[in-house]
């Protein structure tokens, strides 16, 4: 069953500057792990904001479980969909515990005290994201990686069925990148949490996502599995950059290597020598052939 469906979506910020998302349709099945990739300015974050209900579509629609997203009340929406934005400006330094408990808001009624269930979930998500030891710390004192994990804990505390992530690995070192994505992947598989994630890093997208959506100038350029989308033709066309696509030796998923200008020169030289060598070979075979016929 489709948990999310985007139909002929067109939207943006400013009518005069035109639409950022020009015409996008896709659907996400329950339990799927979808990655949205594309160059800067292709409309990834705009699409993300439209899907999360923060931006109204100009045309077309976004449906969550066959319901128009802008018709779902915030509390209803938040009890099923958790959103982790790219940047969150925090003014007041809540403790980690207080901050994560805000994720329980959609499940609580106004005058009810914290129930045991809320506290149990708090502890569970803190342990899951490895932030239990940070629970009494102030959020503004944390490092970037710690803060990202706390944000994720807050999202998990909402007990979502759909998780939307915008660049969750931004500014993180490789170990934290892998840690965060492993965690999301595990919840995706164990609890069949549906995940839609915007990612810059093509290789992380390749190794974690079931499906990829490659955007170009506000439109879907290509969608499908990693090996269908991440071909060097697609990437060179969309990113205007020369790449080499190999296979990851362990997972056999595509692996994108960047090629610098210098390397491109080297390759061209190599090609040239190869070509010269080939020409010689053909000449040689040709001459050999002629010799043999003469004989």
């Amino acid at each position, binding site marked *: 069953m489709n948990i999310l469906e985007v139909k002929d979506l067109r939207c943006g910020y400013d009518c005069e500057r035109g639409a950022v998302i020009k015409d996008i349709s896709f659907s996400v099945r329950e339990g799927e792990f979808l990655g949205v990739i594309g160059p800067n300015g292709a409309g990834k974050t705009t699409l993300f904001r439209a899907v999360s209900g923060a931006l109204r579509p100009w045309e077309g629609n976004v449906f969550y479980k066959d319901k128009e997203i802008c018709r779902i009340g915030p*509390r209803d929406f938040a009890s099923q969909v958790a959103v982790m934005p790219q940047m969150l400006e925090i*003014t007041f330094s809540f403790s980690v515990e207080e901050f994560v408990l805000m994720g329980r808001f959609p499940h609580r009624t106004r005058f009810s005290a914290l129930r045991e269930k809320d506290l149990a979930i708090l502890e569970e998500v803190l342990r899951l994201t490895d932030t239990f030891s940070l629970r009494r710390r102030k959020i503004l004192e944390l490092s970037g990686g710690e803060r990202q994990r706390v944000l994720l804990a807050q999202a998990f505390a909402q007990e979502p069925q759909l998780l939307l992530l915008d660049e969750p690995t931004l500014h993180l070192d490789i170990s934290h990148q892998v840690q965060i994505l492993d965690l999301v992947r595990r919840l995706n598989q164990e609890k069949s949490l549906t995940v839609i994630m915007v990612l810059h890093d093509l290789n992380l997208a390749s190794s974690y996502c079931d499906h990829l959506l490659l955007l170009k100038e506000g439109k879907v350029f290509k969608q499908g599995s990693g090996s269908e989308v991440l071909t060097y033709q697609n990437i060179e066309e969309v990113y205007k950059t020369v790449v080499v696509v190999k296979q990851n030796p362990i997972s056999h998923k595509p692996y994108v290597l960047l090629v610098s200008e210098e390397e491109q020169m080297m390759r061209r030289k190599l090609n040239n020598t190869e070509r010269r060598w080939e020409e010689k070979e053909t000449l040689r075979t040709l001459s050999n052939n002629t010799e043999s016929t003469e004989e």
Partner: protein
Amino acid sequence: MDKKRLRIFILLFVIFVVSIIVSAFSGASQLKLDTVVGKDILWKIRIPRIVLGLLVGGALACCGAVFQGLLRNPLAEPYTLGISGAAALGVTLGVTSGASGIYLPVFAFAGSAFSVFLVYSVAAKKRFSNPSLILGGVILSFLFSSLVFLIFSISKAEDIHGVMLWLMGDLSSASDYLIRIIPFFILPGLGLLFVFSSELNILTLGEEKARHLGVNAEQVKKILFITASFITGACVAASGIIGFVGLIIPHFMRRIVGVDHRALLPVSCIAGAGFLVLCDSIARTIIRPLELPVGVITGIFGGVFFLSFLLKSKQWEIF
């Protein structure tokens, strides 16, 4: 954690009660409870004044915390959006057009209602961001106070004196009828602010994130803005522009109880109430038999006290 909060709560409450008692027994004349005059002074002058001080102090501190949270700016205060300037203009117009003293609160309230209406309708139409909202408020304040000074410079000196006293904030206006009316303006509003304190916590993360956590951000923001402005308008109408309470008390309390508004709002309320009443007793006694406007004392004592606290503490950050 919660035990610590409880202890702070009790401590604050003790200070609060003490400040009320101190205030009741301080003033221009010694209080002799065995005489009729003494009883009259206590019940007809000091108690109403204390009640007004409690209400206004608590309300300003609480609204200050709400505005800081809503605008996501620690420098915000109840007067940031131009309420005080507009109220001052209203009072000045009232005085110079010859209205009697009893109607001044009406003029002040009309002024503040006008500014809230102005700021809010423009902000709602243009979907202002917080910084532009604050900037707009500051510009409005300047505009209004320039108009006040314009009127001052073309009117008679004796008219101005009353307005000056009011501009500095003054609790001596506590009359019987004011005391009967003001609680109806302030207390229900404060209750409403308390009810929405969980939402306010989440709103400090920004409107978009708040919506994603299940808060109907636009609606809650509107309710909180209008309620806090309304309360502030009532405070200004009752006792003039008492500065500093709304800015400093929430900061001070945030250091003690943390940033969770469910604790911060009630604690600020109690602390603000106690602080203003205490300042008022100082204002009444320090140059006996004359009285100072309480706004002067909140500024001087509050400023020195908070600055010394800031210098003593190890952290330099305000929160």
